[in-house]
């Protein structure tokens, strides 16, 4: 009895797998991107105009993406890594150079977002959306000006701060305060940063990378060191949430599009990139997600209110830093932060 059930179940599984495998034709694009980052209407529009079906597979962090990509399994045609992971993929020859003849709308991109340190020759990646990491202040509850990281991590704000749960961001903040460049991560600098971080971690009420806006909006904390996208959503919700780029230095990150080695449908990937570069399409993405849009033509279509959002389009014009690929010093950061949190 049981074996028969097992046998028929196995049969059903196999049939299901094969039918799915068989349907994977050349008119399909395997996209591996951040979840909720590519609006459904954009995917539908692309399918309508090209006939190519998009299989949108999602991840929730760059590291998750890297782990699944490296293990193999699915042949992705287009991936959406953050800048520093793209750099690592380029170094390890895991990306395919882009064919700019197939990307006529490349010219829509603003020069500030091109030839960035992760891809100095602009050979492998196309910027999708950018943002910064900065300070959010609930101006109804905090009356004093908070302009930098030092102001934020002041003992008077103990138990009123949320930060992203990301060791590298915290270490970056410490390096800024110490006056070191944010990519100089070595044993000596980390040793210097340690007492500073130990002191900060005691002040922080919660660490949340996925939705630091929750605690701010709930009023459980009054200050935050968060992603610009989160701050932009908060500002849209209530203008009392002010976004500040720390005066010590600010980190900008860019999510890019790239074609990985082993892609089966590079043509479709290029077609999709070019479709995303259309101003009217790029505008849809900006309407859904208030990040910084690197597409100059699309910015012309945005409303004054969108452009006025200080977290999406900071007035601050100074040069921003980007993360570089760290190699194995990532483990040092993780060990340090685990140790400090553990001592809490």
């Amino acid at each position, binding site marked *: 009895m049981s074996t028969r059930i*097992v046998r028929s179940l196995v049969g059903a599984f196999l049939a299901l797998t094969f039918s799915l495998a068989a349907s994977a034709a050349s008119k399909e694009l395997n996209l591996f991107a951040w979840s909720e980052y590519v609006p459904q209407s954009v995917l539908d529009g692309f399918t309508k105009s090209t006939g190519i079906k998009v299989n949108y597979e999602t991840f929730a962090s760059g590291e998750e993406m890297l782990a699944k990509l490296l293990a193999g399994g699915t042949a992705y045609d287009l991936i959406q890594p953050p800048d520093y992971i793209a750099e690592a993929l380029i170094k390890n020859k895991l990306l395919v150079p882009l064919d700019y003849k197939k990307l006529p709308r490349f010219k829509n991109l603003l020069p500030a977002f091109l030839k960035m340190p992760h891809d100095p020759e602009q050979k492998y990646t196309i910027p999708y959306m950018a943002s910064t990491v900065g300070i959010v202040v609930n101006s109804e509850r905090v009356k004093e000006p908070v302009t930098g990281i030092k102001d934020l991590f002041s003992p008077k704000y103990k138990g009123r701060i949320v930060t992203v749960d990301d060791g590298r961001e915290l270490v970056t903040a410490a390096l800024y305060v110490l006056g070191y460049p944010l990519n100089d991560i070595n044993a000596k600098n980390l040793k210097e940063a340690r007492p500073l971080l130990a002191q900060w971690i005691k002040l922080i009420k919660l660490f949340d990378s996925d939705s630091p806006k929750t*605690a701010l909006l709930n*009023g459980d904390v009054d200050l935050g060191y968060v992603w610009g996208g989160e701050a932009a959503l908060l500002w849209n919700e209530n203008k009392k949430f002010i976004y500040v780029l720390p005066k010590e230095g600010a980190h900008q990150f860019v999510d890019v599009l790239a074609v990985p080695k082993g892609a089966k449908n590079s043509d479709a990937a290029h077609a999709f990139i070019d479709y995303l570069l259309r101003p009217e399409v790029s505008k849809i993405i900006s309407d859904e997600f208030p990040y910084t849009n690197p597409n100059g033509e699309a910015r012309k279509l945005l409303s004054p209110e969108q452009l006025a959002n200080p977290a999406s389009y900071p007035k601050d014009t100074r040069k921003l830093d980007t993360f570089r690929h760290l190699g194995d010093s*990532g*483990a040092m950061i*993780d060990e340090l932060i*685990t140790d400090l949190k*553990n001592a809490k």
Partner: protein
Amino acid sequence: MQALAIPDAENLHARRPRLWGWVLLAPLVAWLVAFVVVPMVILFGYSFCTRDDLGRVVFSFTLENYGRVFDPIYLRILGRSIGFAAVTTVLCVAIGYPVAWYIARQPERIRDKLLLLVMIPFWTSFLIRTYAWIAILKNEGLLNGMLQYVGLISAPLPLLYTPAAVLIGLVYAYLPFMILPIYGSAEKLDNALVEAAHDLGAGPMRAFSEVIIPLTWPGITAGMLLVFVPAIGMFAITDLMGGAQVPMIGNVIQNQFFRARNAPFGAALGVVFTLMFVLAYALVHRRASRTR
């Protein structure tokens, strides 16, 4: 009363398997080998490897990963995770046992439905459920509002992002996994048995401790296993309701694969963690079958 018994080790009527016994067991063994043993072997292999700067595993031999595992930091984190899991288990038994017992005493028609009602809340998304708890426990939340309205407190109590909030979240998440197995073994008890104990002059308390508990013990141990073991590795609740202030062993292992990009060390942690558990389990199991 017997020691923590793995429920089945003591069936005195068990016989030696003949052909059919082996044939029927084969699929289970094959499944375990393919999807538990093989992954464990892969992981074991990884734990002796090194990695390149992208985090890919490089095949070489090193014992360095194991050298780090026994760092006091990680032992302390493991101790904390076990502590939270233990408290959760005890609270789940205390809260869940009476419920399981009560449901088991209802007419058959109602029983199944009550059982389903225990589980239905968990068919909503974990994150949505947890955010509902956040709405209840936050400073300006439901609970603080109610306590202030009644006049019990004058200023909001900081409930969220404290160990208490973590425990509420853990007990909430694991309670059904205690109630259901206990129900499974309490259901077969006859009321007549309880009454007999009572008729023989035992008060409800004695009837409970000398008749009911021993007879439902297999269900309690099963529930303890199903709550305690998964709770050790749990960290999503600690992160969301505790504010990720202190690391749990689950965070540490996951971080090795993601943020630290040190899969070999993560593998070593995973291997040691799993082996410690297997040893503890085998010891308890052996003692349970020897006490007979």
